[in-house]
């Protein structure tokens, strides 16, 4: 599984959504919408996987072991469940075409199994600490600055250490939310069609189409002058704008050529100022919080990159490919697609940050952190308001942050610290339950003496 992910990232071509769907595929209980995406993305992969499996079954039934390929398949069936699937597929791919004797094939498979069992993690291993160190240590080598996004020069995206902290913090809204929107078959081919979709997505407010807005003191009214050119480009006209302004219910609205005259009911100076703001930021079209949309051509198809993110609304838009929509706002993914998808997104985002900085970190560490963050069914922050704050041990919580409050609460609640974690045992001066400390069997020296 980890391998697959890595390949995706390395190839870089695997589409965002596809990668995401794949990553979460082994876990069941995937949210409805995501399942669709998964099916779509994995369709080719499954097809190629499924074929040899069928052949395997037929080969076994139809003919006795004659060909090497059939022999290999029979061999591999024995290892099903003992070796990870990706190793099995790799073995099959690498050995079925090769010309070698059956004994050699068997040897290779056996050796692979042996090597695999040797590479397994040992019970007691402090997997968490190792993961934290592996992700934290390279932090010192990361850049602080936000850089341009590879490919889209115009979009600034937070990267490096600040972004990693953001992911780990599980902020509800990232500092630079952005979406990657793929288009469906009808729209991805032409720029015109893509632009059409853009007009549906991009938020257009009065300020975007107004050449000027002035307050006429004499008539106590605003005059909004519409920029014909831009308006036309955005497929708007003065009438539509006026109608939208009417909905604000501020006062009378009239159209005069390119101008819209709004005569508000209130006249107080400070209120007028606020009204002006309201008119300017009035959304005419598009989706809330999506400030800008850029069209990019990648791999013979047009792709939209947005500044701002609103997954649930974008999914409703006609012309997009809902299976491949992606946002870097993890909590939004959790809300719309479910926690499994959010887990996958955390993995993808965190790994991408590390990878983009040229830091080599094993996927498994990132996965573990994502699993810890999402294991309760909602996204928990790494830190005082999440994982660390919800620990069952009083001492561990007190040793981390907000010491006094935890101690007082523990006293009032009559809490008991079972001394199961690391910090607690360090505090009381006992061996910690990790690694060699996991062993709870002791030899009784007195018995030994008696035996002698």
């Amino acid at each position, binding site marked *: 599984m980890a391998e697959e992910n890595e390949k995706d990232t390395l190839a870089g071509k695997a589409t965002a959504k596809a990668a995401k769907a794949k990553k979460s595929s082994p876990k069941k209980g995937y949210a409805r919408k995501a399942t669709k995406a998964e099916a779509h993305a994995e369709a080719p992969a499954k097809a190629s996987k499924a074929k040899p499996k069928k052949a395997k079954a037929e080969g076994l039934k139809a003919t006795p072991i004659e060909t090497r390929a059939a022999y290999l398949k029979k061999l591999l069936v024995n290892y099903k469940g003992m070796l*990870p699937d990706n190793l099995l597929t790799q073995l099959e791919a690498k050995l079925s075409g090769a010309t070698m004797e059956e004994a050699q094939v068997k040897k290779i498979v056996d050796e692979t199994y042996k090597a695999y069992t040797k590479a397994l993690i040992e019970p007691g291993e402090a997997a*968490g600490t190792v993961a934290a*160190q*592996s992700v934290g240590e390279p932090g010192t080598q990361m850049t602080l600055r936000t850089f341009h996004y590879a490919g889209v020069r*115009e979009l600034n995206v937070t990267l490096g250490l600040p972004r990693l902290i953001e992911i780990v913090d599980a902020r509800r809204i990232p500092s630079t939310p952005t979406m990657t929107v793929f288009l469906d078959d009808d729209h991805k081919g032409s720029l015109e069609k893509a632009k059409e979709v853009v007009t549906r997505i991009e938020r257009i407010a009065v300020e975007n189409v107004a050449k000027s807005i002035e307050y006429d003191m004499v008539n106590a009214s605003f005059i909004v002058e519409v920029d014909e050119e831009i308006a036309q480009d955005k497929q708007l006209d003065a009438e539509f704008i006026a109608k939208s302004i009417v909905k604000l219910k501020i006062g009378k609205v009239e159209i005069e050529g390119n101008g819209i005259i709004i005569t508000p009911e209130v006249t107080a100076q400070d209120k007028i100022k606020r009204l002006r703001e309201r008119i300017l930021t009035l959304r005419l079209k598009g989706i809330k919080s999506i400030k800008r949309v850029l069209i990019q051509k990648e791999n013979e198809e047009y792709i939209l990159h947005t500044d701002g993110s609103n997954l649930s609304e974008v999914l409703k838009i006609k012309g997009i490919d809902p299976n491949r929509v992606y946002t870097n706002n993890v909590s939004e993914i959790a809300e719309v697609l479910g926690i499994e998808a959010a887990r996958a997104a955390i993995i993808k985002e965190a790994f991408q940050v590390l990878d983009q900085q040229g830091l080599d970190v094993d996927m*498994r560490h990132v996965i573990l952190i994502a699993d*810890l963050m999402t294991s309760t069914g909602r996204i928990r922050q790494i830190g005082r308001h999440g994982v660390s704050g919800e620990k069952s041990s009083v001492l561990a919580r007190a040793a981390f942050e907000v010491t006094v409050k935890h101690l007082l609460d523990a006293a009032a609640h009559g809490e008991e610290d079972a001394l199961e974690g690391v910090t607690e045992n360090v505090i*009381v001066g006992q061996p910690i339950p990790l690694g060699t400390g996991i062993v709870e069997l002791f030899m009784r020296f007195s018995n030994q003496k008696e035996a002698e």
Partner: protein
Amino acid sequence: MSLSDIAKAMKAIKFGLLSPEDIRKMSVVNIITADTYDEDGVPIEAGLMDRRLGTIEPGQKCQTCGNRVGQCPGHFGHIEMARPVIHPGFAKTVYLMLRATCWNCGKLLLAKEEYEKYTLMMERYKRRWPQLRFKLADRITKKANKTSECPYCGQEQYKIKFEKPTTYYEEHKEGNVKLAANEIRSRLERLTDQDAALMGLDPLLARPEWMVLTVLPVPPSAARPSITLESGVRSEDDLTHKLVDIIRINERLKENIDAGAPQLIIEDLWELLQYHITTYFDNETSGIPPARHRSGRPLRTIAQRLKGKEGRFRSNLSGKRVDFSARTVISPDPIISINEVGIPFDIAKLLTIPERINKYNLEQMKILIQNGPDDHPGANYIIRPDGRRIDLRFPKDRKTIADSVEVGYEVERHLKNGDVVLFNRQPSLHRMSIMAHRVRVLPYKTFRLNLCVCPPYNADFDGDEMNLHVPQSEEARAEALVLMLVQEQILSPRYGGPIMGGIQDYISGGYMLTRKETQVTREEASQLLTSSGFDGDLPEPAITEPEELWTGKQLASLFFPKDFNYTLKSNICLKCPTCKKEECEHDAYVVIKNGQLISGVIDKKAIGAGQPESILHRLIKDYGTDMGRFYIDKAFKLFLSFIDTRGLTIGLDDEELPQQAKDKVSVVVGEAEDKTAKLISIYNQGLLERLPGRTLEETLETKIMQELEEAREKAGEIAGSNLKDGNTALLMARTGARGSLMNLAHMVACVGQQSVRGERVIRGYQGRTLPHFKQGDLGARAHGFVYSSYKDKLNPIEFFFHAMGGREGLVDTAVRTSQSGYMQRRLINALQDVRVEYDGTVRGTDGSILQFKYGDDGVDPAKSDHGKAVNIDKIIERVISAGGK
């Protein structure tokens, strides 16, 4: 101490409140005098330094337990409060309880059905989700607060107002009525245990009324020792000062009450007492001024002692000071093994290892005892079987002592070669920051370490210091040796590749040795191989006529196992579109066949630190960590020896460009300047086309920056291709030993654009960066483009801009270290309890499953092959080649 000594293990710690009875029961003295010592320096009876509170002076016996300083644990006293006082830490809890209960009958303000419903819920929560029960309690309390009439006695409920930190009002129609602490206490007393439990308390351990103090425990004097200054002046601890205040006011309050003083005076004193109690517990309580020392320094009271980085928890409980440790400056030693650490004699004589005498080591131990503490292989103490320690510093005649020891005695002997110690450099960011080394006792005063272990420690020798710890038990030593020895840590769990390896001269040396033209004579070859510890025969010389010559590749091959096969594209590889493989004219294609380096040079990719798929990585994966250590210790030394014989320096000559190349550079840079000017004029004419999503100004900036960046790159290319062939700086950059082509370009061609916050320099004066420019000058020079190279000199303006960029870099590093440090602390804290269980699942302390199989495939990244579970290609290769035989 060994594992068998841990007979008593702590199983759990229970938290709770002390009841007034508890406090009185554990108290040894009721303290009534607000003073410590009299004029003669004798502790005042029933004062804050009463002898019964425990001894703090050496030689004295404790009046309570009879123990002396080390043994006496200290004993609590108590103060009887004249009037009850709110415990400030529980003020909020008290408020919530007051709101949720009836002022008249003291019942929880919930109707019967609801009450029963919640009782059942609470029961269920307690059994199934113990952590969540507090959330439920919150809900219950909030719900109860909403009731405006007591469902039991029918009384109307008043709104309670809470004013931080410890004042409560009841809102009557006539106005707010202040609730006195004794009134609050009696209300809380009326609460039933059941009701308290519903509100999240454990009434057996924490009755609500205990949150209003009637008795105050006085910590033992050992917890607040007084300091005697050189001048003989006694200085008391902050806590003692605070307690003095409390007692003084308490006594005054008592007197006034007894004398029947007016209510107003009593209330004032009561409030003052409350203030002192509040600051006694937490001197940073919001809403009140902190209590200060006479000098104006805020007092460090109980909460401050516990809190924060320097508080009890993080500084004394989570991290502890240890014996048997040492710290000094480090310096490099390429001769010792990576597994070793050089320890100065002076330190070796202070750090000891307890060794039990048996019949096999008796004679040896006797010698050590005779040598005593001052001669190196000696001993500092003898521990007799009855536990008595004999100090070897003082007796003149150690011979008799040596003769008197028998089997069963223990000797604390000096550190000697081969002992296992732990070596550490802060910041300890990953597990390779503490590794086990074998001792090598050496002269001089610094710790010595092999250069190849610098990367994991992130150590250099510009004054770095490192710490050393000596494990004292056999178990600890065994674990250190098996799990923490340097060679076991070569492969990093971060990415499943070697984190140690060659740096700098190792790489240059490897390259110089293995490049095609390197040939050595018999004498030289012998010299090189001997110094690197090779003990086999010289191979057949590659050239016999006119004289015997060996190629560098031949020598480098001597350390490979005979069946080692390997291919790699080295660091100097230019990444040509079609690789000529073995035929590569740069010799960048490394092929090792049957332990012979056939083609290719050894450089960063092959032996560098932190390079997955390097020779080192393959050797360790295929032959084990012993082979890895052997290769680093021996072969790497060959590279160093070779660079020793040939020499490698850089000087000003290496930064010299031929005149014609210099001209080219100035042309390129000049062109860029012209282009920039053109862009600006286009912009000024308003003809510049806006990039989507950018303003016109931003567009111009981006375009100019692109142009200038391109120019610098071109200049760099010119520099790179025009440097002389034997240029050592270029050699180091190409092989990856040190520096980059960009560094080189900075030195010889053009330093390029200086940036602040990722933009060209813009700050300074209005519309210009320096007064030397016209306002609104957008040109390259005016915004931090440095045309000169370092060698040519920077003019003052360029120098200034360069310093701006440089300063930003420094600030950036400083900010980054603190930010990433905090992130790592949080990560570690959140993940430290996560471990792999015997069933292969990954779980947290509470037993909750995070992963059914670690990393979805159960593979340990440290044992993986750069993240892959198994390197199948390698196995296929091996099986096929074995079959061929």
